[in-house]
């Protein structure tokens, strides 16, 4: 006697993080089955990259993931450096770390806004997205552009930090610490937030491992896995930080892990600025871009994004253009393997916040 009906969430739906669609089958307002429908942002990056010089791809790669472009730049640069056997200067490592953490902060601020909005608290979105703007301004000062920085490139970074930039970053970190108290008050300590998220969409540790989750989702189930620790890149090996874990595995735990990571990032930035060599080269000279041949071989470079492991698998055939670049966005697994299973049995009201709590980023799997 049960009657089910279909409901498309997205692509034009505020509850969906980006241009993406989920086909839900509902019974009443309980989800019976959920199927992701990707492809609205498919731009054939991997194809286009095969047609371009290594340096020209610099313009493409940050556009793979919009909220946090720098992870792509870093992973791409690391893959190329791996193939070429290039070591990057010390200062460049630290600058990369700072930029990556700034991007993480920006991504988490954006995520906080999005998450609060799916729960109906628009005030926090207004605050966090507004505060994120200062980070973008700092990026603009560093590399000239607010969003697509194209700052990290093979061999190091593109420009040294302008004088006084470090101090501005530190001031921004202090500002965010101050504002974090307000975010906590209005959202993370809010009774309604707890009410909506605790016990919702629980992933157990076993499930998380079986489904190959990474990033905050895995940490929220109690597995301390983080590429920054496991396979340190940039300057993370010199920096002291802890991987936060919780054991609840629900929407609340995932949100709290992200908030925790946000605070961690603030610490990492402060440490990195303190430890960074004050002077020095920031780039290892690379060949003429038009005749830049990368030795034959394969490399898999991975970085920790705000969402999980972000990897670039690069194959070079020894010419000026990559033979194949394959991008592993963590959202692919999180959406099609986890969310599709996790949404079943949930209420319609929870669908969008579960999706956001998994931090689904459609450009990552559409590519």
């Amino acid at each position: 006697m049960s009657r089910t009906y279909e409901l498309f969430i997205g692509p034009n739906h505020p509850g969906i993080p980006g241009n993406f669609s989920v086909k839900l089958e509902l019974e009443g307002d309980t989800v019976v089955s959920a199927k992701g429908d990707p492809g609205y942002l498919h731009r054939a990056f991997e194809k286009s990259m095969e047609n371009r010089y290594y340096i020209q791809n610099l313009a493409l790669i940050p556009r793979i993931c919009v909220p946090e472009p720098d992870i792509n730049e870093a992973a791409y640069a690391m893959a190329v450096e791996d193939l070429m056997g290039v070591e990057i200067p010390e200062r460049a490592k630290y600058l990369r770390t700072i930029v990556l953490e700034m991007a993480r902060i920006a991504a988490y601020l954006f995520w906080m806004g999005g998450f609060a909005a799916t729960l109906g608290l628009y005030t926090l979105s207004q605050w966090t997205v507004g505060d994120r703007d200062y980070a973008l301004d700092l990026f603009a000062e560093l590399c000239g552009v607010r969003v697509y920085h194209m700052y990290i490139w093979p061999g190091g970074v593109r420009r040294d930090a302008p004088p006084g930039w470090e101090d501005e970053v530190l001031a921004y970190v202090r500002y965010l610490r101050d504002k974090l108290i307000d975010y906590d008050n209005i959202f993370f300590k809010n009774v309604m937030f707890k009410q909506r998220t605790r016990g919702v969409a629980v992933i157990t540790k076993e499930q998380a491992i079986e489904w190959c989750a990474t990033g905050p989702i895995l940490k929220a189930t109690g597995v301390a896995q983080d590429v920054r620790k496991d396979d340190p890149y940039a300057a993370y090996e010199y920096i002291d930080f802890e991987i936060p874990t919780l054991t609840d595995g629900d929407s609340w735990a995932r949100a709290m892990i992200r908030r925790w990571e946000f605070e961690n990032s603030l610490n990492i930035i402060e440490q990195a600025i303190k430890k960074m060599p004050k002077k020095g080269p920031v780039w290892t000279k690379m060949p003429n871009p038009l005749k830049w041949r990368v030795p034959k071989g394969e490399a898999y470079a991975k970085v920790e994004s705000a969402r999980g492991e972000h990897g670039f698998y690069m194959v070079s055939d020894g010419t000026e253009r990559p033979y194949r670049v394959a991008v592993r966005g963590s959202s692919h697994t999180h959406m099609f393997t986890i969310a599709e299973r996790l949404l079943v049995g949930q209420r319609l009201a929870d669908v969008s916040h579960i999706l956001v709590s998994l931090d689904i980023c459609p450009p990552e799997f559409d590519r």
Partner: protein
Amino acid sequence: MMDLVDRIKEIEGVKVTVQRHNRVFVDVDKDKVIDTLYYMKHVLGITQLSFMNVVDRIDEGKFEIFYVLYERESKVNVIVRIWIDRDNPVIETADKIYPPAHNWEREIAEMFGVKVLGNEDAGKPFILENWKDMPPMRKDFDSVKYCNEHYVFRHSEEENE
């Protein structure tokens, strides 16, 4: 870490290349890949499939399919590679071993035209919609030519509304 490599080497018919301290490439025969993956997960305890995709080796007439696995204890990425025939690209699904493989297989089925046995979703439209040409990620698909045929660029002297 060497322990893991040694144990991988014990698997019959694999060729192991240690590229960096934590990247191990394992070349396997295409018929044995499912057994190997099963062994890796359930015996060696490599629980995470990070990534899976295809490299079109058009000169050799092959598709190279790689599975990027991750071992949490020794922090090693094990990359299993198989080569299949490009003219008759068929693989067996690995989604019973690693659930995320299911959707990576959908993607490679669509983008490269690889047939996946045992995965009923592979072959259905996933990312593309109404696609009629050859699978677009194949090397012999010329993207620029396709664009010139299907789209109109600005400043290329043509009718206006």
